[in-house]
């Protein structure tokens, strides 16, 4: 097809179909929710339209004869370090539509990944390493406010007991939680899988802001319920359903803005859970319009504590932004028991691309600064810190904890575990892997039994790896690593970066 407009010619992907291998079985036609593959009646064979391919690799994975390969389109614009192809393509699209560029998943832009620039320590000879296959290793983590000091009293037989009244805590077997991804953004099968995997592994999952389907209330001991500006599905049973309540103020992928769950994704079950009409957009305003100050935040934190009768900790989630340390200090002083910091590489179902790729700061820097600030102010015990946004492997978890996190959230990694290929079209509702879609035909591609098993495996695997790394450092408890920045060294970092991270350069 010649004479296509320029934006049609410069599509992103090419579908390579090996004609010798293709048997025109139409598996790809059925699997592709973007209609990139189709059966040509005239030629009686399966053909494709490259312009429609989004690069999800579903067809390639399911092709029974391995006839398909998805590649980046090899044709290039003239090399230009300033006007990289993405800018041209975006301008073409916006010139056509006048639309705001919408993106899915975390930011793909090339900003430093500090996890990769930090290295862990290990014991050699002195302070020997510990073999986790032989010795007990403690990964158990409690999230919530800790007392400044504890007092213990002995009964007449000399048996000690704790006199201090402890604040409510969330107990985790492994310091990893499934991040807030709302029912609506992802489908019910995956919510169920997260709930079951969290229960199986002794961790928790976060409902996200779309409410909690009534059939999942039974997993409440492994659930954090989220309250965001839209207050979807928020009512008193919901607030009492979990072991924690999280106020979502911001999200790393889109600091400072709200969210619109498009009407296309609101089917009967989502509608029932969010308590909004079918097909209507579910709009979360940018701020909570009842929170314009730290005092207002305090008011909501204590409204939620009153509603849950002070039985569960209340968390506040913010995006990592420039003044994150001061904001976190205010949040802790407002009475939050947990502060969740979401870095700029955090995922999203939908965010304006300009916001996602240009607003916020990396989690590593934010985390180090928040931990340091709360320590300096003597209030670190009043709240746990949870780090989120771009945690890719268990070493990232270990590094986050050494930088001062109590636990981490994993969102993108959770989705990858069930087959996500980060094609980044979550907002279309057509996810070919059956993840970010509520289309019944597509969501069936996620079997909750298999998904729960995969998530359970992931937590177990990372847990083992964390034990190995801890043992190697001569530590037998995750508590001994928390905020222990002496276990980290930087490579290739400037003095400023080292100073912000609070670590020494490798070799020192």
């Amino acid at each position, binding site marked *: 097809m010649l004479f296509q407009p320029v934006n049609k010619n410069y599509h992103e992907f090419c579908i390579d179909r090996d004609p010798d291998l293709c048997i025109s079985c139409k598996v790809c036609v059925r699997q592709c929710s973007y209609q990139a593959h189709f059966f040509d009646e005239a030629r009686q064979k399966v053909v494709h339209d490259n312009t429609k391919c989004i690069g999800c690799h579903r067809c390639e994975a399911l092709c029974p004869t391995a006839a398909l390969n998805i590649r980046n389109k090899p044709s290039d614009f003239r090399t230009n370090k300033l006007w990289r192809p993405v800018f041209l393509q975006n301008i073409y699209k*916006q010139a056509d539509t006048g639309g705001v560029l919408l993106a899915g998943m975390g930011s793909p832009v090339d900003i430093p990944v500090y996890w990769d620039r930090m290295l862990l320590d290990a014991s050699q000879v002195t302070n020997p390493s510990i073999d986790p296959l032989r010795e007990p290793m403690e990964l158990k983590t409690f999230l919530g406010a800790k007392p400044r000091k504890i007092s213990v009293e002995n009964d007449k037989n000399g048996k000690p007991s704790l006199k201090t009244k402890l604040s409510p805590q969330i107990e985790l077997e492994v310091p990893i939680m499934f991040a807030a991804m709302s029912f609506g953004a992802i489908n019910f099968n995956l919510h169920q899988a997260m709930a079951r995997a969290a229960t199986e592994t002794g961790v928790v999952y976060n409902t996200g802001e779309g409410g909690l389907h009534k059939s999942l209330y039974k997993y409440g001991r492994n659930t954090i319920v989220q309250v965001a500006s839209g207050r979807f599905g928020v009512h008193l049973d919901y607030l009492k359903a979990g072991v924690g309540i999280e106020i979502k103020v911001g999200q790393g992928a889109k600091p400072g803005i709200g969210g619109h769950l498009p009407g296309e994704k609101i089917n009967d079950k989502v509608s029932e859970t969010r308590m909004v009409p079918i097909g209507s*957009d579910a709009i979360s305003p940018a701020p909570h319009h009842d929170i314009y100050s730290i005092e207002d935040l305090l008011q909501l934190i204590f409204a939620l504590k009153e509603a849950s009768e002070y039985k569960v900790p209340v968390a506040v989630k913010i995006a990592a932004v420039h003044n994150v340390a001061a904001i976190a200090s205010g949040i802790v002083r407002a009475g939050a028991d947990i502060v969740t910091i979401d870095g700029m590489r955090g995922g999203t179902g939908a965010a304006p691309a300009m916001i996602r790729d240009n607003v916020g700061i990396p989690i590593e820097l934010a985390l180090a600064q928040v931990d340091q600030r709360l320590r300096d102010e003597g209030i670190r015990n009043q709240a746990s810190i949870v780090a989120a946004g771009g945690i890719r492997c268990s070493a990232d978890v270990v590094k986050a904890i050494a930088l001062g996190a109590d636990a981490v959230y994993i969102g993108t990694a959770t989705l990858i575990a069930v087959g996500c290929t980060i094609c980044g079209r979550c907002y279309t509702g057509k996810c070919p892997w059956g993840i970010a879609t509520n289309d019944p035909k597509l969501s069936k591609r996620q079997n909750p039994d298999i998904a729960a098993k995969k998530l359970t495996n992931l937590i177990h695997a990372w847990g083992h790896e964390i034990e190995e790394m801890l043992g190697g450092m001569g530590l037998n408890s995750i508590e001994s690593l928390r905020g222990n920045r002496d276990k980290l060294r930087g490579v290739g970092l400037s003095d400023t970066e080292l100073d912000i991270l609070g670590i020494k350069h490798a070799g020192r």
Partner: protein
Amino acid sequence: MTKREQRTLAAGRTYYRQFNEEIRALVREGVTDFVIRECNGQRYLATALEGDLTFDIHGVPGQDLAAFMRGPKIRVRNNAQDGVGNTMDGGRIIIEGLAGDVIGYAMRGGEIFIKGDVGYRVGIHMKAYLDHQPKIVVGGKAGDFLGEYMAGGIILLLGMFSDKPDAPVAGRSLGTGMHGGVIYVRGEVPEHQLGPGLHAQPVDSEDLKVIGALVEDYAKELKLDSKEIMSENFVKIRPFSHRPYGNLYVPC
């Protein structure tokens, strides 16, 4: 009718946390009707309470009165502060004076009847779902951002019992981003006070039926003359789309 048991409590200088714990304990014991005297701004009264309870509050209750509430009926004999009926699910709140900012934020059911003026950001993100149809009636005038992001339910603004003779009936950005529900205003509302894309339209007979029933209920609770309230014209503000931002984006 369930068995009623009344209790009178003096809020006085008791801190809200103890006071609310006392109320919750009494509810568990079977007390259904509370008279609260000497209320001095205690926060979170009736927050997250459920069922057929009544509260007769003398004095001024504090922030977040009846947040997340589902069922109880509350009468405030004086003014109320900010955050009344935050994310409330059901029940009825009658305020015989005026009320502050952020009334009925994200409320999903029940009624809030205020005799006098209200502050800013009232009825933001109210939403309806099936038989949950929240309603706010304001006898006085409203500040800015009334019904912003409204997703369902009814706001009725009368502008009659106001302490602000020179103020417009509603402040600026009325109904901005609304994508459900309806706002009725007695008399006229200046067009420049409305959010982008919105217009005040004349009411039809169906609307008048809805307004009439609501006014009847409101007037009865506040001992007002419903005929006088209905003696003026009404206009309505409806969303221009249930997806106001549906065409804002292009995939990148």
